[in-house]
């Protein structure tokens, strides 16, 4: 995260410089195709909401989570590349649905697990799952 802040200034300058070019290009492209994907689809908005929820619920006190400042807990496993992990809690195959189930009710998945039930609502669990899915 520190590096992204260091990059911000030169990037902003660059953006200012190429703005006129971009405006022209955009105008030209828009004329041709009405639907453009700017990469801020629903899932990205979801993921950003998820990141905020991860901060609010303090998941970082137990997990190391890339992209979340101060998330360096060592109680549970690191969530680095969690999107690639084959099993959650070492027990269920990692799929969007099982992730939501795991987040809402870890003991329902593995009665012995030390991950607590944090009382997440389903839409919260979905948003968090969307963020975790970007870590791969």
């Amino acid at each position, binding site marked *: 995260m520190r590096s992204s802040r260091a990059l911000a200034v030169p990037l902003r300058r660059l953006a200012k410089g190429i703005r006129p070019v971009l405006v022209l290009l955009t105008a030209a492209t828009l004329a041709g195709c009405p639907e453009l994907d700017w990469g801020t689809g629903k899932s990205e908005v979801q993921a950003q909401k998820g990141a905020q929820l991860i901060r609010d619920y303090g998941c970082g006190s137990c997990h190391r989570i890339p992209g979340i400042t101060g998330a360096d807990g*060592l109680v*549970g496993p690191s969530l680095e590349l969690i999107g690639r992990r084959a*099993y959650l809690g*070492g*027990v269920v195959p990692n799929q969007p649905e099982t992730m939501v189930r795991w987040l809402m009710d870890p003991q329902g998945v593995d009665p012995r*697990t*030390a991950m607590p039930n944090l009382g997440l609502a389903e839409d919260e669990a979905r948003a968090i799952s969307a963020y975790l899915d970007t870590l791969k």
Partner: protein
Amino acid sequence: MIILRRKKPSVYVVATLFVLMLLGIVGGVLFVYLGLYNVSALKQHTQPVYAVVDKALRASISQRAEEINAPPLDGFDWQGEGLRLHRDNCVQCHGAPGVAPEAFALGMTPVPAANARMARERSVSELYWVINHGIKMTGMPPWKYRLSERQMWSVVAFIKQSAYLSAEDYQKLVASLDTPESSGGAAASPARASTGETPEERGSLAVQQYGCVTCHAIPGITGAAAHVGPPLGGIANRAFIAGVLPNTRENMIHWIRSPQEIDPLSAMPGLGVTEEDAENMASFLATLKDKRP
């Protein structure tokens, strides 16, 4: 320098290149004939050699798999034929959810990829291509003359579906087969991986020799970049093992030897690790301290 430059610098460049090339060839020949490269399968390739070979392997497979037209997999009986063929021909080397490969397979170099990993990371056509052709110099046999095309697609369908199976689901499916004799499973005869000076060194070798690298990313171990289980970097500082057991040396040894005794639902299989090797592995894992970012 000024004098040299007047006298056609290109001559010196060419001469230097020529000498370097000659040295390269002589060096290469000596390297081969003096047997300098260590072919022992007890040690993984060096990191640069591993990286190059691994890249070449992946590129070769994905290039050739592009030409395959995969049929829709719904048409294949993955729960019956696919599961049975996989259990009888593949589990011995690649394992299945909660089932370890045979002892001999854990000692292979390269060690066969964990089933869960290929299920998630390989496309349907890549799986089919590898099953059909095998992979030279790895020990992966080609099945072209042993399985029919339909059988190979059934195996592919099973592998893809196995990504959705927990260890428990898998056991249930196998039990429902009409030929439910068990196969694979933990190593029958205990292996021993105890060369090395210190317990940590012996442990680091044992972690390779028992195939832990097929499922875990482990810092400092060449080729250990799989994400079937959690990454083991920082495991020394982790509060729990597998989220259920306080992280003490005794518990770690117990976990490594029999994960299912601790968490019956766990997808990590028992690998037939001896007490001594597990002790060394625990010593090695204790060196994997968390590095604060």
